[in-house]
């Protein structure tokens, strides 16, 4: 769904700066392997967010001493995260109401 990946990236970065590969792993792990992110798409999404200045980036060194590009949340990104999260919650609630309680589903 449009914007889902953006939201997940922003949420992941709330814990602190991270490189692309780390973000991919984190999303996969935290979603209990539901979301499998095509890494190519992830990098394009990162670039899109960087272009919007919701996240910043700079080259650094990873925990296992590899060169990596680290992303971090900007103030603008933080505000967007709050905004998008509440939007998302409203949406989920609305869809949940429409679909009704789980057990009635055939």
């Amino acid at each position: 769904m449009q914007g889902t990946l953006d939201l997940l990236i922003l949420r992941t970065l709330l814990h602190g700066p991270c490189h692309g590969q780390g973000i991919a792993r984190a999303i996969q792990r935290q979603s209990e392997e539901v979301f499998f992110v095509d890494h190519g798409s992830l990098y394009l999404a990162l670039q899109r967010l960087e272009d919007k200045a919701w996240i910043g980036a700079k080259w650094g060194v990873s925990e296992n001493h590899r060169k990596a590009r680290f992303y971090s949340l900007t103030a603008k990104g933080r505000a967007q995260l709050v905004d998008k999260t509440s939007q998302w919650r409203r949406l989920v609630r609305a869809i949940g109401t429409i679909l009704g309680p789980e057990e009635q589903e055939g």
Partner: protein
Amino acid sequence: MIFRRKQRPAADFNEEVRAHLQLEADDWKGDGLPETEARAAARRAFGNVTAAEERFYQRGRLVWLDHLLQDLLYGLRAMRKSPGFTATVVFTLALGMGANTAIFSLMDTVLLRSLPVKDPASLYFLNNAGALETGGSPPYPCFERFRALSKSFTGIAAYSPNDHGIRIDGTVEQVDGAEVSGNYFGLLGIAPFAGRLLDYGDERLDPPVAVISYPYWQRRFGGNPDAIGKTFTLDDRTFTIVGITPKEFTGLGPGRHDDVTMPFTLVGPNLLRSTGSWFFDSVARLGPGVTAEQARAEIDPIFQAFMNEFPVSADARREYFHHMVLTRASRGMDQLRKRFSRPLWVLMAVVALVLLIGCANITNLLLARAAKREREFAVRVAIGAGRSRLFRQVLVETGLLFAAGAAAGIAVAWFAARRAIAFFAAGAHPILLEVHWDWRVLGFAAGLSLLATLIFGAAPMLRAMRVDPHAAMKDGGRATASRGRIGMGQFLVAFQVALTMILLAGAGLFLRTLGNLHTADAGFHAAQVALILIHLPDPTYHDPALRIELWDRLLADVRRQPGVQSASLSFLTPMDGKTREVGFAVPGFQRHSDQDRSIGLNTVSEDYFRTLGTPLLQGRDFTPNDWAETAHVALLNESARRHFFGGRDPMGTVVNIWGRVPYRIVGVVQDARQADLRQPPVPFLYIPMRQPVDQGAFMMLSIRTSGDPLRMMAAIERRARGLGPDIHIVRTDTLARQIDQSLLQERLISTLATAFGVLALLLSAVGLYGVLAYAVGRRTSEIGIRMTLGALPGQVAWSILRQTLGLVAMGLAGGIAGAIFLARAAEKLLYGVTPTDAVALATSAILLSAVACLASYLPARRAGRIDPVSALRSE
């Protein structure tokens, strides 16, 4: 953010992707996978690396611009790869667009351009008008009433263009000048280039001052600032030059430069007081919020009151002086426009046809090329090129060709316009034009090229679009004649033939017109006559007796020169652009109209008719003995004899000029055309130079020479100057050139129409040849099979030829109909021929058929010579 962030380079992104793959592989290794499998897993998880990199590259970028650049480069490469095709297209377009742009630039200069003055739209000429014609301004006293009584205008200025002989540094020279009222420059909003311009105070002519034009300043004074403060004399006044008008402003008459502008009062108190002299133009600027109709309604009663106070005959009042009209002055006076608007529109139509013919060729070439490239497009479609992308590429390629053509066309136009300007500027009455290469002209060329691309590139583009990869790959570029269907290319050929027929017929009609005007019995022989217009200026030659004495000496001197067969002086010569009419009465003649009150008058010396080759029909020529002390005598032309005397013998009758000067008729001469070769001769009266009715300060010396008249010119001019002080040679010419000059528009049209007709013929021949040669090339294998099956070479050639002859016949029929239709629209430009003139139509049709046969014979012959074996083997 104030500054745009620097674009992240693609290399940086690619590096990040590599770093990611490394980290990912590290993770997998940590999970216990071996090195190679870890790497493969990392790649798998990433997806398509190249696609991601490409998407990064395209992100935020003007992709279409990228594609456009690619298409442009591709198009340029394609142009380079087929130089013959490119050269043909660009050359054809250069000629077609060049001709169009050149004629448009002339139209723009002559017909469309506004005067370089402040707010030209609110300027109007105040003209008197009647049933017959619209004239200039009413007499000066009426003009003064307009000024005093009307409230519609912010100002009204008087303007009178006149040529003068002015004396600078001891020699008298001819200048084009104008007399203007003090408010003229202010009203037009003209600021001086240097010095100052004229104002009301200068109308006192104390001291007399003048301003000169920028071109004259450059030409006569070499652009030296000392020109301001220099003096010249005109008659008995010494003028000081006080300023220079700006470069772009040269007066109110397009094509004429007011080199010297002087105060209006110079025309003299008699003219300013005269209530019957209609000699100048008045230009006025409407006040804010006033419409032309309101202003007219205000000045017309003033004019009517004036006309009631100083009446003219009822006929003249109705025909010339009936009411006032306001004529737009934004583009200046309209003589040039009146004279050239029809010819220029005709030429514009002609060049448009030439461009159409050229474009039809190009369409055919593009179609042929598109057919040849079918496989290329098919391959591209098959490997995934989008059709829109393909379309764009063809559009760019076509646009590139037309743009190159337009650029070359502008260069052609620049040269062509310079030639045309020289054509106008030649002769004794040069028309000075300046083409402005500004956005209007360049925009015209660009718009034309765009339009042509869209119209003539569309069919080939659509054809490229329709390509079906499956069929195109299967069919190895073979083709057979499609029966029963006239292809686009064939239709275009017929269309070209029709247009060419129109142009050739038009050229024929215009050439016949010019020929008719040249050979028409004009009543004189123009060849080998030198003309020198001489002016004996005041105050040196104020005494009439002194002038006549000098004219006598001049004639005697010239007649003594070797190579001179005869020499004479006259006020008028044929087609010199001047006319002169006087009030005239014949005893016993019953008048029918105002026209019967006047007659054309020419003051001539003895031998005038011999020099011009006009035969004396009856009586005697003048002699030097017809002078002040003897009885006044006169000659009539045949028209005057017929009109005023009918069957009676005019000899010995005494006629009156202005009801007071009596002349006895002593002879009749043959009619000669005087002012216009197209008009039948009008009644004329000739009186001897030594028995004049007026000043006679200007006389044209005509000399019939036994050799080239131009070679004698300098010697005679020198002798004329040597006869006395201050002798002013106004201009020198030959009679033949003077006639040519009067036929300027006819020559312009027939020259250009012929040139464009030949060009069209050439283009059509190329088009016909191209279409056939292409068809034969495509059908080589089919023809091979036919010949294997027993078709004879002659039969094959004929089958090709037969096709084209049908097309040519169709085109000819359409072209003849079109030519007659269009010639009717231009009938006013013709003389002595009708739009259905059989000679012009038949000659053009035969010429065109001959060329078409030749152009189609060559490919047809080649078809007949195809060797069936090699044709089939080349599969």
